């Protein structure tokens, strides 16, 4: 089963990478983009035996740094 974990910076945490991307978008001549926040997506292929609780543990203890990041787990339908 595919599981996707989306990790994003918390609100209020400066995202210089997002800001640089924003500038680059403006450089394309496209206007109207108000803000850009960059994050990461981690895709896992897991056995059905892996529990939600174990996924939460992975996120809290490794995939996201809870001081600065939030995460969202998305289980893909088989």
């Amino acid at each position, binding site marked *: 089963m595919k599981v996707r974990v989306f990790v994003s910076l918390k609100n209020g945490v400066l995202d*210089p*990478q997002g800001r640089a991307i924003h500038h680059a978008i403006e450089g394309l001549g496209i206007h109207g983009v108000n803000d850009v926040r960059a994050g990461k997506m981690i895709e896992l292929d897991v056995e059905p035996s892996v529990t939600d609780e174990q996924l939460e543990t992975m996120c809290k203890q490794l995939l996201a740094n809870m*001081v600065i990041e939030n995460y969202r787990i998305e289980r893909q339908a088989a």
Partner: protein
Amino acid sequence: MSAFRSAVITFPGSNCDRDMAVAVEQVCGGEVLRVWHGDAQLPDRLDFIALPGGFSYGDYLRSGAMAARSPIMQAVVEAANKGVPVLGVCNGFQVLTESGLLPGALLRNAGMNFVCREVSLTVENNQSLFTAGYSAGQQITIPVAHHDGNYFADAATLDRLEGEGRVAFRYAEEVNGSARQIAGVLNAAGNVLGMMPHPERMIEQAQGGSDGRALFESLVRGLVAA
């Protein structure tokens, strides 16, 4: 007193471990043991543990994230909790925050650029194990070389760090966007210090200055006094 006995941890991708070992050897003397990240145990009777700079595990996931979960770090956390002095410089600081030994996190530099130059620091706390050799408010020059040195913690944590005298060093100039220009922080017990600047690169005049020397001298004096 027996000779000063220290360990420098090397992770895959560490690149300041040798500089650190040389600095500790020259200033603290005694025996400097080199320890690999995959080791599950530290040598016994350590007076000091150093986590060096570099790009452990290629900065995969987040700077310091993988190293913080390596086998040796469990032993380092245990030793730190028993009071063994632990210094993390640059990537070592990132490893310390990722392992939970120090609060906060180190984000990408606000200016997006890798910053590699000498910076002015102010010694904020000269009462610690690591900083007793400096005078309070002293300005020192130490080089930085990092991409992720932008110290972040929530306002309550920052207030607590400042209130408890746990800000060891502050940048005396804008460097990387760090909250309240914090360059180095101590844990509550005062035996763990993380800092982005590299004191091990300022040990003798041949390196352009020796402002880093007092940090290592402080450790030896602290041990003799203890």
